[in-house]
């Protein structure tokens, strides 16, 4: 087998893969790209063309894919949103319980009492709403609903707002605790940043899915 034959064979194989990768609605385009290979006189150029076809097919396949149609992605997203829901509902629950007077005698975290005292009632109420919407988002994600994006973005925005409010209040001690954690380990800030990044990635994935037509 000469190099020329190998190169042509490889081009044809790459084109075959590109045809398989291409989504159904792009079948005509995949054929159009592949048929040009036979018209290219140079073997090297034909191989480059075939690789370009594969690139286009992969691009089109990714564009047409709904990420939530793949169950590990869907369940991964739901698990992360569940963690956010638990975190938000825990904060809302503990603050509202204290505010309702149930913890005055035996509150287990006395260090937090000054902070709870100055926390206005609307904050845990808002957190409660956010937590409930997060729970709703879990159901919507698992059902591949297009409105899941809104159900994640809205409580996420509320959470960011609550964090901003808490950071702006000096008695909250948030900045101090972050500063102490950073002094203990420079990597301590990775976790909150990673958490933020994961939620943003989930929002982007849901946005991508809401823009992608349902598979035929």
């Amino acid at each position, binding site marked *: 087998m000469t190099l020329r034959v190998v190169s042509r064979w490889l081009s044809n194989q790459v084109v075959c893969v590109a045809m398989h990768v291409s989504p159904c609605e792009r079948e005509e385009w995949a054929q159009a790209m592949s048929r040009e290979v036979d018209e290219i006189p140079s073997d090297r150029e034909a191989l480059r063309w075939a690789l*370009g076809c594969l690139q*286009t097919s992969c691009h089109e396949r990714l564009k047409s894919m709904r990420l939530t149609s793949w169950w590990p992605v869907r369940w991964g997203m739901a698990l992360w949103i569940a963690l956010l829901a638990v975190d938000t509902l825990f904060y809302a629950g503990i603050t509202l319980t204290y505010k309702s007077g149930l913890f005055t005698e035996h509150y287990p975290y006395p260090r937090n009492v000054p902070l709870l005292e100055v926390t206005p009632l609307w904050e845990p109420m808002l957190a409660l709403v956010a937590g409930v919407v997060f729970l709703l988002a879990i159901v919507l994600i698992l059902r591949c609903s297009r409105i899941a994006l809104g159900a994640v973005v809205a409580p996420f925005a509320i959470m960011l707002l609550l964090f901003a409010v808490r950071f702006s209040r000096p008695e909250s001690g948030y900045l101090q605790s972050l500063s102490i954690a950073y002094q203990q380990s420079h990597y301590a800030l990775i976790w909150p940043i990673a958490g933020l990044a994961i939620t943003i990635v989930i929002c982007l994935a849901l946005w991508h899915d809401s823009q992608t037509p349902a598979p035929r």
Partner: protein
Amino acid sequence: MALVRKRSRQTLALLVALMERPRTWQHGYELSKETGLKSGTLYPILIRLSEQGLLNSRWKDAERPGRPARHVYRLTATGLALAHEQMEVSVDSESGLRPIKAGAR
């Protein structure tokens, strides 16, 4: 005055190539050679233009017997109008409308 969204340099190069011979159906490889665009860049643009109703495509029987039909392209009336509009927008801009030849990026 209505704002005209400026297209990418690659799209402009393709529009120019198609605009130069508006009545001629052109093959993908021919367009690639003319614009210097690789197939991985050319076809996503062709697909997008076609979906936007700016490009017509059809299968044309091969000139040589025994060969399969090939896809050919030309601009629609809307596409041609847009190409003229884009040329006016870009004629004074830095990117210009030069074809993108290999290694000239």
